[in-house]
């Protein structure tokens, strides 16, 4: 069996045009046996496919059953009223690393772009919400192809900075979304988890579907620093001087506590949670996430 090749994030980062990058990711994610999880209810017939257990009985083509004595279900072209809100954290911490390598924000942008591409291609309305130094930048949901370019352009040009992060985005969006919608959060979630838990529960209580991508850098997981550092906080002026080796164990312990608590919150809220590091191929991440049976079932139920 041929080894499947995934896209190197670094290589993707070298692609200047975010549209191209998004399409590349999407194509990589949906190639082969992958089926779009967003393919749902429609008024225009598209094709038949063999029945598989779990398919709703109302979509069985009874006539074809009579003719062929085989069970097939009907599939329809998408004409959806899905509204997806992309909340991309652009706080200062997302700028890590500031070196030439792929930052967490770049990686989150890539994922967000790919998702926006998929959704708009399916005529779903996509909204973008991200941080700006003086507040929150919000693009309302639209489903036009041309709108995709505007979304991607905003993501591409934006530089992460400031203290306000994903919490500000959630606060901004929660009162503006009236219908049940898909809310996709992309952040490193280095925030107060108790407050985040309240927001997540609130959104879930409003019936929204949540996809949560935690984007972190491998350095934050492994803490490979072996020298003296004057650590500067990327959101506040705070500094801390420490020896990387001596503080590593305590850091990893604190980090793991945070991660465990975050996963626990997401699990209790019934949220699709994916923690990715920026060295993972984004198409692979996307594919793994979108093709979860769980995700597909939920989408079908919704539409």
């Amino acid at each position, binding site marked *: 069996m041929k080894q499947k090749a995934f896209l190197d994030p670094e290589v993707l980062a070298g692609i200047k045009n975010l549209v191209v990058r998004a399409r590349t990711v999407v194509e990589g994610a949906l190639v082969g046996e992958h089926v779009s999880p967003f393919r749902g209810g429609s008024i225009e017939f598209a094709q038949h496919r063999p029945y598989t257990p779990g398919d709703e009985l109302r979509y069985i083509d009874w006539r074809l059953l009579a003719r062929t004595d085989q069970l097939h279900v009907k599939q329809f072209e998408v004409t959806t009223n899905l509204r997806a809100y992309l909340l991309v954290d652009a706080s*200062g*911490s*997302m*700028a*890590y690393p*500031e070196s030439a390598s792929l930052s*967490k924000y770049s990686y989150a942008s890539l994922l967000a772009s790919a998702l926006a591409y998929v959704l708009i291609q399916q005529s779903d309305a996509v909204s973008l919400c991200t941080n700006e130094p003086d507040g929150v930048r919000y693009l309302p949901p639209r489903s036009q192809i041309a709108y995709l370019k505007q979304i991607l352009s905003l993501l591409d040009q934006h530089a992460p900075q400031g203290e306000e992060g994903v919490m500000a985005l959630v606060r901004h969006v929660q009162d503006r979304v009236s219908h049940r919608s898909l809310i996709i959060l992309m952040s*490193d979630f*280095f925030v107060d988890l108790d407050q985040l838990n309240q927001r997540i529960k609130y959104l879930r209580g409003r019936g929204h579907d949540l996809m949560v991508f935690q984007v*972190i*850098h491998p*350095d*934050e997981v492994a803490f490979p*620093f072996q*020298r*003296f*550092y*004057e*650590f*500067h*906080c*990327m*959101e*506040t002026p*705070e500094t*801390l*001087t*420490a*020896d990387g*080796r*001596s*503080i590593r*164990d*305590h*850091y990893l*312990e*604190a*980090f793991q506590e*945070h991660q465990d608590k975050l996963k626990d919150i997401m699990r209790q809220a019934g949220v699709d949670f994916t923690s990715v590091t920026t060295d993972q191929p984004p198409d692979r991440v996307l594919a793994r996430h979108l093709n979860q049976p769980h995700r597909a079932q939920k989408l079908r139920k919704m539409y």
Partner: protein
Amino acid sequence: MNLFSWTFLAPAALVGFMGIAIPVYLHLRHKPRAVPLKFAAFEFLLRARRKQKRRFRVEQWILMALRAGVLALLAMIFAQPFRDELFQTNSSLNRRPYIVVLDNSLSMLAGQPTCFDEARNTVRDHLKQRDRTAPTALLAASDPELHLASQTASSVEQVLDAVKVTTRRVTLDAAYQRALQLLEDSEWTHATIQIFSDGTRSAWRELPPQPPEGVEVIYTSLRQGPFKNIGITRVSQPQGFDAGELDITLANGSANTSDFIISVVSENEQLTHQLRLDRFQDTTHRFKLSDSSQKITVRVPSDDFALDNQVNFAPDQQSKTRILVVDGDPSPTRRNSESFFFEHALNLHRKENTSIDIETISVNGLKSADLSEYDAICLLNVSTPPTEQLAQLVSVPAGILISMGERMDFDAWNPFLLQLGLEVFEAKRFDRPQAVEISVGDHPLFEGMPIADLELYAQGIGIQAYRLMSVGRSNFSIPLSLFDGSPLLVAKELEGRRYVLWTSTMDLGWTDFPLQPGYLPIVRKITDYLSFKDAKAQSDTLPVDDALRLGLMDQLVLQEAQEGYADVPVTGPIPGIYTRRDSQNAQLTHLVIDPAELDFRPIKDQVEGSPASAMEELGFKEFSRLDLAPNLLWWLFGFVLIETWIAGRLSLKWGSR
């Protein structure tokens, strides 16, 4: 090892120079300033730091304690601490000339084990540590020359057991002087003299001179802690009192006040008495037993020095002193006779059972008297000498008093007196009383007489008339004379007899002299002298050393040794009860320990107001002074090493702080 002009006693310590590599390494290893790094997960770093700070604080406390310790050690090193330890010969001294001065006086037998045994064991240990041929000498206090033939460690060790305690009164003075002389003769330089003593003041007759340059004197006191010693220093019979009476002298040789019970035990009787004696004090108590036993035992509770806790005493059973008084001018009225006052002076305050027996007769009574029965014959104002009777006087010793009064015919007396070298002239009278010049000199007649009594005599006599005497070349002593030197009383011992001529003034014109307080002690002293009381007392109870000094030991035969000497190897006369070979009346002599040996007053107390003891003042070392600074330097080195290690480790962990 020499470096420039420095000498190192412990060159191995120079290995420590390798430690210089540590700061050099740390210097080279030292990290530059912290690398600035923007980091997103800053919150976790803060949490990590909070956890890490707890450990950091502990390390900082340790570091602070170490640094405080370094400073404390530095301060102590500059203060040059030292500790005094008992002297021990060691490898660096095992070739150095070493002279042991060993106190072998009786007081060294105090303690259990005794100071003497401990001293010998210590010396033996020291000798074993020394090179066998190292120059060594042993000087015993009793006889410094005895073991000087042995001058190596091995030979001294062989003769060490031959040194024994002596009962003689010995001090360390001669042995110490001999040690210094030995050093000078042997040209031993940089020598060590170690003096082993019980640490008492009585171990020295006088403070020794300072040691010369290069000679180290170690004064080792074997006495550990204060001794408790109540000792019986003397048991004697009081003169002129009952035979059953005893004077017991006790001494507290320890530094604490002691309560104790003394028991006096005879064959049929036992007396006990509770006594308290202050530190280093002595006291004499008189005990009276109802019977006169052959042997009396005086006992005090046992203590650290056992040899003075019991004394056996044989009371003197000799007959009373018999005195014949010949009154040459008897008066029908008894109180007008000189003999009345004379006799009264001898008997005043004496009890019925007195040890003196006085018989008074007239001159005529002399013819029928047996003069050989008397210890003293007192011729008071006898007109002519009873030459024939005196010629029959065979008792030796015996004494004759010639009291010259008004009735004395000097022409009749002079032939007799000229045989003694004396001549008497007519009486001389003064217009007014003349003062008496008392020249007691060192004549035994007035020996032991209180000066107050002599002053009473001088004040009481108002001389108005006296007989002129010429002593010529007779070698008579003149214990009493007038202001111009004219003899009032002359005395001489000749061929076992004692003669006293006394111009008493009584009959040379009546005075109130016999009523004066000074009359009584003079009369008693004269009769004591004539009856050889002083000579008898000398042989009664006396210290061992006095018996040796007087040459009495050839005449003494031990009858009973004092308790405790049977198991003790000592040299010298054993204290106890002796008889004299030449004594006609089997007189007993009691030899006792020299009282100085019972005094355990430490020599350290001798210098008042000075923190140093008397020995230290003289440059003697009572201990080996151990310099502690080198030890502290090792501690300092260790502290600095640990501090450097921890500081370096913290520096690596925390960077510049």
